[in-house]
């Protein structure tokens, strides 16, 4: 969205040859570290915060998927809540109808169902661009939850489906919610390792090439249509998993949680975090959860009436979208990047100063 003005810093390569470990291993180790941090965090915080940490977890994977689609491939989706809807209902139906399935199978199938829907949506979307694509995906977000009213016996109508999952082994000394938070983050980190590998690899390069110039990408031998569909697929798998995890955590799947506003707030998170950066997805997910929390606190503190309080988060997301695009097109992660460059530069100046 904006042109980077700083030149990449030139670094002299040291001739010393070091064997770099394979990226998959690096990412897996990083994920393990992250899981350890999460486990520690949940141990020192109360139940309420545990729930928030878990919520950040499933938003993170949904926002990361959307970042890959919108930030890296340049396809705008206003219907990502629809994939979460599919994931959530897959888990709900499986738990209720086939209770013998283990949780990991439910979650895998939720991701697969999301992916299947993404494949269909992507196949249609590969021919659409910009506003056309945005319109079609918006229709998906508006239309899909209405299906619950068409099949009230199967999908529970507008009340949705509720259920309980017993994921914890009997006798384990961990509170249920803490255990659930661990499961959520374990799944999210596993998925993130795959996503990061895709983004850093050849496919990720193809994604960016398609975003920057479709004609040039096609001329250099990239199958543009197939690449766009793949981006939709990966992104929808993430959405399906996120929805599945949400259903697992809350024990319900109801159409009211998957409004177009959800899809738009996911997009707000992507834009706020910084388009095209997976770190940005983390800041975006944290912001999603905490803006909601803060606006509730604020409404309590100021004794705002319920009409104002209920609508405050949406207003905040809207303002974020506008302000970020107008004033900080690179989002939070862009700000961090900027800060890093400045710090390094000042450190170097200091070094030079000391030498002289």
């Amino acid at each position, binding site marked *: *969205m904006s042109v980077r003005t700083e030149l990449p810093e030139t670094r002299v390569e040291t001739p010393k040859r070091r064997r770099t470990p394979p990226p998959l291993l690096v990412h897996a180790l990083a994920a393990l570290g992250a899981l350890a941090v999460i486990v520690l965090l949940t141990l020192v915080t109360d139940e309420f915060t545990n729930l928030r940490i878990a919520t950040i977890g499933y938003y993170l994977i949904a926002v990361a998927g959307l970042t890959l689609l*919108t930030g890296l491939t*340049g396809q*705008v989706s*206003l219907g990502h809540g629809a994939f979460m809807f599919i994931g959530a209902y897959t888990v709900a139906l499986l738990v209720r109808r086939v209770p013998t399935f283990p949780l990991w199978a439910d979650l895998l199938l939720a991701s697969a169902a999301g992916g299947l829907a993404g494949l269909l949506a992507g196949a*249609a979307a590969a*021919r*659409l661009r*910009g*506003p*056309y694509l*945005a*319109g*079609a995906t*918006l*229709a*998906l977000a*508006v*239309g*899909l939850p*209405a*299906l619950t*009213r*068409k099949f009230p016996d199967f999908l529970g109508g507008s009340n949705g489906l509720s259920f309980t999952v017993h994921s914890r082994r009997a006798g384990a000394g961990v509170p249920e919610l803490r255990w659930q938070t661990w499961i959520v983050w374990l799944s999210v980190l596993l998925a993130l390792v795959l996503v990061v590998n895709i983004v850093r690899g050849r496919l990720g390069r193809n994604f960016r090439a398609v975003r920057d110039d479709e*004609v040039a990408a096609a*001329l250099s031998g990239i199958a543009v249509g197939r690449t766009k569909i793949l981006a939709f697929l990966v992104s929808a798998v993430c959405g399906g998993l996120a929805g599945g995890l949400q259903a697992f955590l809350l024990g319900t799947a109801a159409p009211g949680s998957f*409004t*177009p*506003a959800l899809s*738009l*707030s996911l*997009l*707000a998170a992507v*834009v706020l975090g910084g*388009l095209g950066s997976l770190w940005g997805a983390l800041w975006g997910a944290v912001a999603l959860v905490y803006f909601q929390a803060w606006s509730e606190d604020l409404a309590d503190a100021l004794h705002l009436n319920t*009409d*104002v309080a*209920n*609508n*405050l988060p*949406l*207003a905040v*997301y*809207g*303002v*974020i*979208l*506008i302000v970020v*695009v*107008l004033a900080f*097109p690179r989002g939070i992660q862009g700000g961090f990047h900027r800060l890093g460059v400045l710090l390094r530069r000042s450190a170097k100046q200091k070094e030079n100063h000391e030498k002289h």
Partner: protein
Amino acid sequence: MQDFFDLTLGGISAGAVYAALGLALVIIYRATRVVNFAQPALALISTYFAYSVTKATGSYWLGFAVAVVAGTVLGVVTERLLIRPLRHRSELSSIIVTLGLLLVLQAVAGMIWSNEPLAFPYAFDFRGRFSANDLFVVLVVVAIAALVLVVFKYTPLGLRMRAAAFAPEVARTLGVRVGLMLTAGWGLAAAVGSLAGLLATPPFLFPNVLDGVFVYALTAAVLGGLDNPLGTIAGGFVLGVGLSYVSGYFGPEMVTIAALAILVIVLTLRPSGLFGRAKVRRV
């Protein structure tokens, strides 16, 4: 057979509303290459104005007039404050900013007037197969469409607006105030959108009331090619009747999905709409 007839008539008046809101999208798209995702919210706010004015004064038509004026002002302000600064940015920027505005305005409407449905009156009697109100809706939309076409085609203002949209640099050297023309386009479109909102809202007004209508309006505009007012009007009526059959024979829950299916099928066969002309891209 009776059913079929009723559904067709019902579809025509619904389609008129889709055509009107679609027309609002097309006017802006022609002028600025922006799809205004905030269009339903602009229409929503002006409909709430109509509600408040009607409630305070007891006159439906006073509320109606205030709503159209308020809508026009909102459109002008939006263009000046939010769209103008994005002139040289990517398509994505304007999509995101208009979506942001959509969220803000819907939330503000909920804060001021609450999320609960409020009773909003029809202009005329709405009972019967093709009621006085249905006739009014269709007539208003046809009149508006004709007016817009005449303005674009036969007036100096329309000529300047077209020039500003298609060749801004040339238009500028010939003395057209391009910026003013773009603002005028947004104002005109928002006025048409407000009308559509007033016609589409009854019987109940709530912040998300126009979401579905907007999806159908966008579908109508895309069917028409996003660039073609006549095509959009035709697309609106065809879609209204088609969706009315879907609602009658398969259930109202299937309507949005059907609209999505129509959109995808049409765009797969003709990526620039039924009435749009394919653009040649130069490498």
